[in-house]
């Protein structure tokens, strides 16, 4: 795209500057909130679109780099836009275009001063995520990473008057920083003691670490990025912070920010360390499986719609980690075609998740505005009062449940193909692990359909559980526009997999040195590896299903009739039915709670038949919080308690400490 002599990297840099400018402009325009929502956010959205286009053009280009004359003396900032960055820029730009359009409608009821600040934080968040993807040295990366963590912390705590939200924000900040320390240490290991000159990624690629130090760096990176992504057991912040944030922010956190952690794992493992040990893959695979199953199980028992989606994000991150683990295993054993297949599945799923999870999160925002309630047990029947939102969300729900011919199915299909092609690895233990892993994956996928039926059915279908829901209004025009964009992304990613896989091949070429390609000569058929092995054509699929449905409708109308009467619901002749008799979210999740009981901490309070004021109360909690986090907190408190014995706040005592230290040191020297 060197037609006009502008490099994609320059455009991406301009995008960052534009976002910062828009954010500051928003802060300056506090007095006129209409301008912020109707002008600044849409402008920001089109900047996102420009970023996605830049990423798209940069995918087929050679990597371009630049050194900024900023930073510390002797430590300039390095930027690089290669295929991996470009792919994630498309993800960031594409998803944030929809979310920003939605925000233009969503934030219009907000007060001026908070709105101005929020506008700055929002665009700073987007800019810092872009910088994370472009950073080419450890210093730049950490600065961008921390800016991202801080700006998102302020976004999460937008409603800081609520104590629970402050608590959620604190937990998020804490875990983000524990993770950041691990990432910093990982970079420290990778620069291999070569001093300050080796802090660039280019130097880290050249540094050949011993197997031990490479593994240390990998483990630290997995821990650090895992904490950001919500991998078990560092997931606790996610179901707290996502519901606390305003919905468009939740969409960005879940749809885009979690992917920057996936980007980090890919960058460190494949680009900087070169994926050396097979057990790295097994570790990632096992962690991913545990995370996926944990996430979907907990999603099934949630009653709060945003918490449900947050747990579903944990599940999807697990699936992505499984894909990464599989890629490492195949890469180490030299099965490059399979490594490319599982990497493609991973990247494809990242893109898909960015689309449908952003869509569902912003959708909950519309519901929240229309009804003022996040608890699914007080919603219901919204399909009648919110026709737009209900249709758009239905697509998202079907996509996330992995239904053909939408996009979730394609990445699931690719991942399962990778599993099916895997026999013949030289390690028989891994050969045994693979079918078990495939079983867990399909179990998680089937459970996610359960979760999504519950999510959509309880919120949109049935009778209204509260009287006030009659007056729920549909999503506004900006909101519809944003959601429609994300729906279009879901549909087109589902219908044109051959094209998408062709684009992802550029990333595989960079990370693995090989491409997946398409075995079928027909653009309609997705056929990785071999047409005889497997092929899938979503377009044919859709056409045939639609054709068969149309034929059925016409035949029924032609040979019979289309008469229809309305009457009261039949319900087996039971006359006294009311909205309270439908399943609540808790009721719908009850079988899962019962089957997987050992995994939950269940607190239940059931009234006796003689209670004058019967009260039912049930809570399902995460055991890990009590078994892992509270002991850590307890130990930390104890340790700091002992440390505080030394601290008295009196100056002469500290002078004595200094003196004693000096004497002891002199004795030793």
């Amino acid at each position: 795209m060197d037609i006009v002599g502008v490099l994609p990297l320059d455009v991406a840099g301009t995008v960052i500057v534009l976002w910062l400018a828009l954010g500051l402009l928003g802060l300056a325009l506090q007095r006129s909130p209409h301008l912020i929502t109707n002008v600044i956010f849409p402008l920001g959205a089109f900047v996102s679109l420009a970023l996605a286009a830049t990423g798209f053009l940069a995918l087929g280009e050679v990597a371009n780099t630049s050194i900024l004359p900023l930073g510390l003396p002797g430590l300039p900032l390095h930027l690089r836009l290669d295929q991996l960055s470009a792919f994630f820029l498309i993800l960031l730009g594409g998803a944030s275009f929809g979310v920003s359009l939605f925000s233009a409608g969503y934030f219009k009821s907000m007060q001026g001063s908070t709105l101005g600040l929020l506008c700055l934080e929002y665009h700073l968040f987007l800019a810092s995520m872009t910088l994370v993807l472009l950073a080419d040295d450890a210093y730049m990366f950490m600065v961008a990473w921390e800016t991202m963590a801080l700006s998102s912390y302020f976004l999460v705590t937008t409603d800081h008057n609520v104590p629970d939200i402050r608590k959620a924000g604190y937990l998020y900040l804490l875990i983000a920083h524990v993770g950041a320390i691990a990432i910093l240490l990982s970079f420290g290991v990778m620069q291999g003691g070569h001093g300050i000159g080796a802090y660039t990624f280019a130097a880290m690629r050249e540094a050949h670490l011993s197997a031990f130090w490479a593994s240390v760096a990998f483990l630290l990176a997995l821990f650090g990025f895992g904490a950001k992504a919500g991998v078990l057991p560092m997931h606790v912040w996610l179901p707290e912070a996502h519901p606390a944030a305003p919905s468009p922010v939740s969409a960005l956190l879940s749809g885009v920010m979690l992917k920057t952690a996936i980007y980090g794992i890919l960058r460190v493992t494949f680009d900087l360390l070169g994926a050396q040990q097979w057990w790295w893959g097994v570790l990632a695979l096992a962690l991913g499986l545990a995370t996926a199953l944990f996430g979907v199980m907990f999603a099934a028992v949630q009653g709060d719609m945003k918490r449900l989606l947050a747990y579903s994000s944990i599940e999807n991150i697990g699936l992505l980690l499984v894909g990464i683990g599989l890629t490492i295993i195949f890469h180490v054993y030299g099965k490059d075609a399979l490594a490319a297949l599982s990497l493609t599945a991973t990247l494809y799923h990242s893109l898909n998740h960015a689309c449908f999870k952003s869509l569902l999160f912003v959708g909950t925002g519309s519901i929240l505005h229309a009804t003022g309630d996040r608890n699914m047990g007080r919603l219901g029947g919204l399909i009648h009062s919110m026709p737009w939102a209900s249709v758009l969300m239905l697509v998202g729900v079907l996509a996330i449940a992995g239904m053909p011919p939408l996009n979730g199915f394609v990445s699931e299909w690719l991942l399962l193909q990778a599993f099916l092609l895997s026999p013949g690895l030289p390690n028989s233990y891994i050969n045994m692990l693979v079918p078990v892993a495939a079983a867990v994956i399909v179990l998680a996928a089937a459970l996610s359909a359960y979760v999504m039926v519950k999510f959509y059915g309880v919120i949109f279908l049935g009778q209204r559980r509260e009287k006030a829901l009659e007056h729920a209004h549909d999503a506004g025009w900006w909101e519809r526009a944003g959601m429609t964009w994300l729906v279009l992304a879901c549909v087109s990613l589902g219908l044109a997999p051959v094209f998408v896989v062709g684009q992802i091949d550029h990333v595989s070429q960079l990370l693995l040195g090989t491409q997946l390609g398409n075995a079928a000569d027909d653009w309609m058929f997705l056929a990785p590896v071999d047409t005889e092995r497997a092929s899938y054509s979503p377009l044919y699929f859709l056409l045939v299903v639609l054709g068969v449905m149309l034929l059925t409708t016409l035949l029924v109308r032609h040979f019979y009739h289309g008469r229809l009467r309305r009457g009261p619901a039949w319900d087996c002749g039971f006359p006294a039915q009311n909205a309270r008799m439908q399943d609540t979210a808790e009721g719908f999740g009850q079988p899962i709670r019962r089957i997987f009981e050992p995994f939950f901490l269940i607190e239940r309070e059931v009234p006796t038949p003689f209670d004058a004021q019967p009260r039912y109360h049930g809570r399902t909690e995460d055991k890990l919080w009590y078994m892992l986090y509270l002991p850590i907190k307890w130990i930390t408190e104890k340790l700091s308690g002992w440390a505080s014995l030394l601290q008295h706040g009196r100056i002469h005592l500290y002078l004595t400490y200094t003196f004693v230290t000096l004497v002891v040191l002199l004795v030793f020297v």
Partner: protein
Amino acid sequence: MILDPEQILAVVFQLTQLLLVVLLAPFLTGWVNQCQAWLQNRSGAGVLQPYRVLHKLFHKDAVMAHNASWLFRATPYIVFGCMWLAAAIIPVIAVNLPFSRAADVIALVGVFALARMFIALAAMDVGTAFGTLGARREMLVSFLAEPALLMVLFTASMISHSTQLTRIVETLAHHEFVLYPSLAFAALAFLIVLLAENARIPVDNPGTHLELTMIHEAMILEYSARHLALIEWASSLKLFAYISIGIALFLPHGIAEVGNWAGLPLAIGLLLLKLLAAGAGLAVLETLLAKMRIFRAPEFLGTAFLLAVLGLLIHFLLGA
């Protein structure tokens, strides 16, 4: 565009099967019911009864609840379309089906999942206690049955090195009655899945409207007339599809080869025989078993899942 004769033949085979399955499916349901009647020492309504029921239902005026939405109206057509498609892409009379390139076994399971999701959502649409109960139980049964089915299909596709149905059937049909240990486990798992997914005893009982036991019937309580007819027909197609999968995986011998005109009548005849035998077997099984409590169903299906995983594991270990 010039089509070579082989392609025309393939299209003819595909259309034949499309038409054949949709017309034969109610017959299979009728046959199973008739066999059950005989086993229970009743005279039965005859194998053509499902056709009469469908005809009657199509003629009636549809009644819908006041608060039923468009989703409720569209679902019968979606479910019928999905099931018809599913039954039409499983190679039972000929291996050369053009559409099988577009949808492999994973997509086949996807079609079933799509239909199930819509019917569960439609069940929740009217907002009655029975509807949501049915939807919840259906999803409970399927979240274990669907992975088990996929595992069974994976075992078969491991043996044939392909996830395409036609390739699987071709490979398996050419092996002269070789007993694969992995397929034996898969067959057992598949049988359990077949019973559960088609709302059969011991998981569900298609013959009652008793609130303690029903799953599938609870979901479709609010449907009437042509909508109900389409759903009933779709259920027949689903049973047909599952039995076809069973035949295709475990008893594919005698299927028509590529470009074999003469093989077609023989293949159809053999298929009918296999279907009759399978239907009779299903009736015997249902007569012998008793309906189990709803919370025993996950254990039952968990067994199927474990058996299927075991089958796949055996394939990985023994390579057979």
